[in-house]
């Protein structure tokens, strides 16, 4: 995908997140974070520094535009998730597929690979998000429950978005 399409995707995802998905909640304020899809689909060859700065500003933009959420929480979770992207992929992908980080194409991977890729990173994002939102260990079971539900919902929606828009058939 070209830079222009990524920039257009940025605006689309931020607006969708702020004006649609932040208003939806299934149980106890667990939220679908569609914005993680945008960040996780950014090319692997992208400069890591640029990637982290993009993640920071994406998270910050979502924070700024949502009037009733806490500032800084999305950016913290997004930067952490994006930083763990490369170690996680090199951990669970075999050497055959993941020979060269620069040439690695996320969009051309099998669906099961994408599932595991999204699962861990979305879980990390959701856990960090709800922990920072609560900012205490009181009622940790509630926080954990929100994390799991949020992970499942976000994973479902992200997987759907990948299947429909990002997948390249071989």
């Amino acid at each position, binding site marked *: 995908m070209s830079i222009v399409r990524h920039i257009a995707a940025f605006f689309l995802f931020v607006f969708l997140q702020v004006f649609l998905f932040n208003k939806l909640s299934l149980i106890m304020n667990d939220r679908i974070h569609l914005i993680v899809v945008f960040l996780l689909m950014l090319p692997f060859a992208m400069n890591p520094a640029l990637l982290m700065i993009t993640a*920071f500003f994406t998270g910050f933009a979502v924070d700024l535009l949502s009037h009733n959420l*806490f500032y800084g*929480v999305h950016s*913290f979770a997004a930067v952490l998730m994006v930083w763990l992207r490369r170690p996680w992929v090199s951990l669970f992908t075999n050497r055959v597929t993941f020979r060269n980080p620069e040439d690695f194409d996320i969009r051309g991977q099998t669906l099961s690979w994408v599932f595991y890729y999204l699962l861990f990173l979305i879980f990390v994002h959701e856990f960090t998000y709800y922990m920072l939102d609560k*900012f205490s260990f009181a009622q940790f079971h509630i926080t954990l429950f929100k994390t799991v539900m949020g992970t499942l919902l976000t994973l479902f929606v992200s997987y759907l978005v990948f299947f429909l828009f990002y997948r390249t058939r071989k």
Partner: protein
Amino acid sequence: MWRVVEFLAKYGNLLLFLFLQLVSFLIIINVNSPHRETSQAVLLQLSGKVSAAYSSVTNYFGLGAENERLQAENTELKNRLLALSNELDAWKSTTRVPNSFSVLPDSLIPSMGYYFMPCKAINNTTDHNYNYITLNKGARHGVTKGMGVLSPQGVAGRVIEVSHDYSLALSVLNLKFKLSCKLLRIQGLGVLSWDGSKPEIALLNDIPQTSGLQEGDTVVTSSYGTTFPENFMVGRVSHFDTRNGDGTYYIEVELSSQFRSLNNLYLVGHRDAPQLDSLEALPEKEQ
């Protein structure tokens, strides 16, 4: 120079990650009020422990002078107590109300809700624009927000933050500090604040030019508010003139507390403060 470039190339991404996380974290704990309160309580605990250790060493050097001053204060308090109990006995005998306090003179009733707690200043500054006093009593000793802080010579500040073992008080020498005061002789009400210039001088506002003000007039706490009881020493008028153009005097008050050497202090609390604060907050909510 080459070593720096090598270092940045190797650890640059990690440093950027830590930097961005630090920025996000600082935004979280400074901008959002629930997070700010939680984190400030924790940070106050940490800084309180350090200040307590430091001051326990430095206090040792001033013990002799502090002892003499405490002795003198004790003597004065005992004398006042004696005089007051004599006055009370005299009053009881004239109105023939045996052993019952069912009818009290007005001047005693407001002061009945106040209680004192001794404490020590473990950290204090006088040379910044926003000066704070750290006290060695906290939530577990019963300190609450809004309690007044008195030095042996007069008003010193007001508590704004409380953690488990320590509390933080706004000093009078703080641009944010405001106190409702009155002039003892002419009974004029005004607001005391600090303008940041000298640590001995505060400003008193809202005293009209028609009041018969004189230099040396005593400024004391008024009966308004639950921070301090009435008639506690604040300072003396050291200078006044008519430079304000709105019919009130510009008054400089020489503060009676010795802010550069705060050591043993007293916290003043009012038993009904939560009730009064929530009552006074009601009209704002209805608007």
